[in-house]
């Protein structure tokens, strides 16, 4: 099924969790903050939240800035 991750349409396995999505992208859950349909999902809950068709996921981190 299709979801939108950081503005890009991507295919993920049906019934997958946010933690699985991070795993597929080879991202360390400790190094990113996850927003799921505009709601922040805390790290301990990432495995519990299932992703649905059309969901919007934002994965952010700190970059250089002033």
């Amino acid at each position, binding site marked *: 099924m299709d979801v939108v991750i950081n503005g890009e349409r991507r295919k993920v396995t049906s019934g997958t969790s946010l933690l699985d999505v991070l795993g597929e992208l080879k991202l360390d859950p400790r*190094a990113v*903050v996850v927003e799921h349909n505009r709601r922040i999902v805390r790290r301990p809950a990432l495995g519990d939240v299932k992703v649905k068709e059309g969901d919007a996921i934002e*994965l952010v*981190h*700190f*970059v*250089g800035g*002033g």
Partner: protein
Amino acid sequence: MTTAVEIIRDEPLTIGGRTFQSRLMVGTGKYPDMDTMVRAIEASGAEVVTVAVRRVNLDRSKESSVLHFLDPTKIFLLANTAGCYTAADAIRYARLAREAGFNDFVKLEVIGDEETLLPDVAGLLEAAKVLVQEGFKVLAYTNEDLVTALRLEDAGCAAVMPLASPIGSGLGLLNPFSVRTIKRRLHVPVIVDAGVGTASDACVTMEQGVDGILMNTAIAAAQDPVAMASAMRLATIAGRAAFLAGRMPRREVAMPSSPTRGMLD
């Protein structure tokens, strides 16, 4: 070597319950490479270091998190809401930044104009109120307007950050009178943020009596960022020392330094 630091009697800077020895804060953007950034931050002596919140690059062929190069146990990470043009966006970015788990401080920017990057003070106040309610320690980037600064303090901001001149302009402190007035009237720390171009700008800014100064481009875009970071460290200390020492009054006419008596006939 005797340094000014040993001679001046100064108090540490306390913002939102956190105490810092250095009055210079630096950004992490626009460096030619990460190694230069790390060495420049070290040379600046800054304890507070700003970072921005952005999307992770999914193909990860390009930039990685700035945290690969900074040790959050040694520096104090201050996340900004740079690039946000509405209160709602700034609030969203601040919440994401806090979720990273380092602290509840945020350098709040709500930009109102793309060309000048001047703040949208209405949006800024709106966002500040919400974030203060949510327990954030808000350091509000604003213009040099006293009334806005007073409103931000009333809203519960932990510090108010008037600009010296527009972000990245390097024009230096354009309105010392307004910045001095803000410092005189506010109780929370006043940190001048943005617009410094070189060490003399930092020195003049600190001579106004403000509590600190934050800069990024002046260091990152210098030909030798590490050397400029060192110059900025010294200039910040010098300006602070001069402020504490209390300058002589200005005069419109000269007054000789040497005795006028005892001259030969």
